[in-house]
């Protein structure tokens, strides 16, 4: 790509970098307002207990707020239209009962966080402990003290997804593979924890909430409802956000409480979450149990899959989507991009006395991919074929597109088998196999594993309606404004927190308007300055917000051309807008000159053209079931059978996300996602003990991937633009995190095949590897 190209396809360097490289970013905790008081929460030390009383020392009077002190606050309530879905009310401050360790009971305010924590420690809460629900598989049908006692059982929802005839597949199968799989509970763990600053702006008659959120507009929707305010009286601002990855795409009790405190008090209040609170109370993720049987013929062709899926969803449903989508997404994604015709998935979403489960990069897909890709390798082993041959045998082929999987996902296009081949080339599979055969001098075992997946992105109305969602994030918005000097401001309803959308959205506008991206500002994350939008999650912002920017850009371009043609005294059909000018056959006029006419010299406007260069566009992709990126990941590992330690020797990704707006940023998203996926695969875990106490409260217990143990990640691209979006682009933000658990587990299995050990649980910790080896040797 030549350096002078700055529109679609250019690896433009980021606008966002300058401020961050000088420490001039503005995260919530960096916003300073005089008189701000810090908030610390009194949180439940019990997994499950009745609250018998809260007492506050006399000196803390007026500084400690319980639910009784904030009577205008209604409970959080998720609405689902799915049949049989149960939706418990969630009081932002606990009233009669606590249901997980960390649940907020009272808010304490003081001039510093330390003093606020002193207050929180000085109060006394009398609890009557109840039996906690810890094991979702055992307790889903009922327990001595159900999480929500009015239910009788502990099920949020359960459902069967079925296609074809799984019983027939079972009868005709020559090969049957049955396994249990487990993906442990973890955290999304952005480096910036959550944070909120709230104050009342009396001049504008509004409560202003700065929050480290991915979804400022919908947070405002919820605050208005829960606090019984009109939305015009609430402004939500997401300033710089230090990573989100999904957990910050939900409403939290703390946001409601801080807004309620700001309404009640005459000074700003802020709550800056610490890491212990984050690991305890920000959405947990990935907590799945599986029992799955795959049926195949002796050539390795899959006939059907029968799956039992249990999602441990924790104590409450996070607004807006509640706990309902995780398991249904797993069920629908589990068949992957494979063409087998018979399927049954029974899925259960279970309430437990744990932190609520929420979205994290990939949501249900890393688990689904882990299961189906491990099964592919086990089928290959059972029929004595190379796993990638079995993969290719069962993958959808280009001529079958568009193809609807037995899980119900409509794959739009692409060559999935080509991604398998490209990934094997990137890893230099023959060389890796040769190294494996040679053996390591230190006794470690080398293994190679692959995993292929389809990533549903930018899905809209059809997809969310099918999930029973009450809020359907099916479009995005852009207000585009050319100012009097020809510079441009784009105001978008999404929120950028590391993705580089300030850069890529200005590239899109540059493509449409022929204006240098350096003269284009992107405003996002503020309900005051942007039209309604849903925010950044579900790999949607490039496609949806980029689509809205493209549309708004074209609307502006049309108007610039009309005014320009008038000024040039030529026909509209004769002008074109490029390189900062509208050019006609006999000369050109700059966009700055046109902008001046549109605002300051309206006597130059053609008849029938209104002043201003200010438009708002919305955009919904041409297909609302999603456009599908896809990839094959490959991992080479060395496993130490003495210590159980897994080292990543090499990692490669062969992917296709259609048209890349900015290849540099696409690769940044892939690599970042892969390393998060490696964290899921090998390190990250929040175990709970039998009393419901979470055991990972610091980054010393909760291991995040570091530079030292990560490999350089190789990337290869395939290019299949989709016909359903602007420029043929597809979303791709989550895909990197989807396949690493599957590819690495397959590689570990390959390394340990001579021993006969396999690990079907993430993270693949040294202890789990050693247990698998010991069990295999005991069996052998």
């Amino acid at each position, binding site marked *: 790509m030549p350096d002078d190209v700055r529109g679609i396809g250019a690896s433009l360097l980021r606008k966002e*970098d300058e401020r961050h490289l000088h*420490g001039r970013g503005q995260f919530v905790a960096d916003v300073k307002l005089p008189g701000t008081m810090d908030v610390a929460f009194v949180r439940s030390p019990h997994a499950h207990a009745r609250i018998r009383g809260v007492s506050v020392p006399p000196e803390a009077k007026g500084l400690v707020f319980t639910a009784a002190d904030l009577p205008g606050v209604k409970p959080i309530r998720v609405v689902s239209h799915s049949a049989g879905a149960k939706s418990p009310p969630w009081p932002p401050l606990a009233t009669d009962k606590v249901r997980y360790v960390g649940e907020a009971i009272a808010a304490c305010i003081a001039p510093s966080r330390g003093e606020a924590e002193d207050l929180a420690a000085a109060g006394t809460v009398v609890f009557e402990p109840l039996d906690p629900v810890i094991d979702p598989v055992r307790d889903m049908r009922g327990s001595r003290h159900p999480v929500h006692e009015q239910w009788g059982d502990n099920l949020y929802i359960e459902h069967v997804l079925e296609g074809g005839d799984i019983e027939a597949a079972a009868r005709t199968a020559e090969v049957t593979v049955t396994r249990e799989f487990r993906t442990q509970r973890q955290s999304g763990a952005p*480096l910036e924890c959550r944070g909120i600053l709230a104050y009342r702006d009396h001049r504008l008659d509004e409560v202003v909430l700065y929050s480290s959120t991915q979804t400022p507009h919908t947070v405002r929707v919820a605050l208005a409802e829960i606090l019984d305010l009109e939305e015009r009286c609430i402004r939500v601002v997401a300033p710089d956000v*230090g990573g989100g990855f999904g957990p910050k795409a939900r409403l939290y009790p703390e946001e409601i409480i801080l807004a309620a405190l700001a309404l009640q008090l005459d000074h700003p209040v802020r709550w800056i979450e610490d890491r212990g609170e984050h690991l305890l109370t920000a959405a947990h993720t990935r907590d799945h149990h599986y029992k799955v049987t795959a049926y195949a013929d002796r050539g390795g062709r899959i006939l059907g899959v029968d799956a039992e899926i249990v999602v441990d969803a924790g104590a409450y449903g996070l607004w807006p989507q509640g706990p309902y989508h995780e398991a249904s997404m797993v069920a629908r994604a589990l068949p992957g991009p494979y063409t087998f015709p018979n399927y049954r998935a029974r899925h259960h979403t279970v309430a437990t006395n744990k932190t609520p489960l929420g979205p994290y990069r990939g949501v249900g897909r890393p688990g689904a991919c882990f299961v189906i890709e491990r099964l592919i390798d086990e089928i290959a082993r059972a029929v004595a074929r190379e796993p990638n041959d079995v993969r290719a045998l069962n993958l959808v082929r280009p001529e079958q597109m568009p193809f609807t999987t037995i899980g119900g996902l409509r794959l739009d296009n692409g060559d999935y088998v080509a991604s398998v081949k490209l990934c094997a080339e990137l890893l230099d599979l023959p060389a890796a196999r040769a190294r494996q055969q040679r053996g390591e001098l230190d006794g470690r075992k080398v293994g190679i594993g692959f995993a292929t997946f389809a990533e549903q992105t930018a899905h809209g109305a059809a997809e969310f309606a099918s999930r029973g969602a009450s809020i359907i994030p099916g479009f995005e918005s852009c207000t585009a404004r050319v100012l009097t000097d020809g510079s441009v401001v784009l105001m978008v309803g999404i929120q950028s927190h590391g993705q580089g959308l300030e850069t890529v959205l200005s590239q899109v506008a540059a493509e449409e308007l022929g204006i240098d991206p350096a003269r284009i500002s992107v405003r996002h994350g503020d309900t005051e300055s942007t039209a309604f939008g849903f925010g950044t999650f579900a790999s949607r912002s490039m496609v949806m917000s980029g689509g809205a920017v493209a549309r708004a850009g074209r609307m502006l371009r049309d108007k610039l051309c009309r005014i320009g043609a008038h000024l040039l005294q030529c026909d509209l059909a004769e002008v074109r807008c490029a390189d900062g000018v509208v050019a006609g056959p006999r000369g050109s006029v700059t966009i700055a000159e046109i902008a001046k006419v549109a605002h300051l010299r309206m006597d130059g406007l053609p008849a029938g053209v209104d002043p201003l260069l200010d438009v708002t566009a919305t955009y919904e992709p041409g297909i609302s079931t999603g456009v599908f990126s896809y990839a094959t990941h490959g991992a080479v590992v060395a496993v130490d059978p003495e210590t159980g330690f897994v080292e990543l020797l090499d990692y490669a990704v062969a992917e296709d996300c259609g048209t890349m707006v900015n290849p540099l940023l696409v690769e940044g998203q892939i690599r*970042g996602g892969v390393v998060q996926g490696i964290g899921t695969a090998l390190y990250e875990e929040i175990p709970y003990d039998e009393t419901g106490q979470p055991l990972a409260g*610091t980054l010393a217990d909760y291991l995040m991937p570091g530079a030292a143990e990560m490999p350089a990640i190789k990337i290869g691209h395939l290019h299949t633009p989709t016909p359903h979006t602007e420029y043929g682009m597809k979303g791709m933000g989550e895909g990197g995190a989807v396949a690493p658990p599957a590819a690495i587990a397959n590689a570990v299995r390959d390394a340990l095949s001579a021993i006969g050990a396999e690990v079907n649980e993430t993270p693949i910790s040294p202890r789990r590897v050693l247990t698998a080896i010991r069990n295999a040797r005991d069996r052998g």
Partner: protein
Amino acid sequence: MTAIRLRINGAEVAEDVPARLSLADFLRERRNLTGTHLGCEHGVCGACTILVDGEPARSCLMLAVACDEREIETIEGFAGDRVMDVLRRNFHRHHALQCGYCTPAMLITARDLILRRRAGSEREIRDGLAGNICRCTGYTNIVTAIAAAVGEIGEGGA
């Protein structure tokens, strides 16, 4: 309250501080130097890394009262520092930052590795970054940027 005098980014500062105030909170809340970020407040993530008497330190683990007579440098400093300039340019060129939260401390650590001649290979750079967590980039581009900076500085000398 204890009176402390110290130099921050070259300027003399005198303040009374409570005994339990961390250096990070002192810099952020009292001096408004908010480029020093807090990611864990227990010394693991490295986002609060600054220089104390020229050496990298976790400002979340130090108390402000312990900094009497010390020399502090934060990301807001480094004016005219060639290594920092080259690092910043290469972080930008190689897309070595996404959300930007780890970036100031990552730069300070990288500068220290380069000055101590501990960035001579990919292995050395990766090991040297072991105390700084980045959740966004996957590290590849950070390592590339630092290696490129080393190359550039090597040609012209630090």
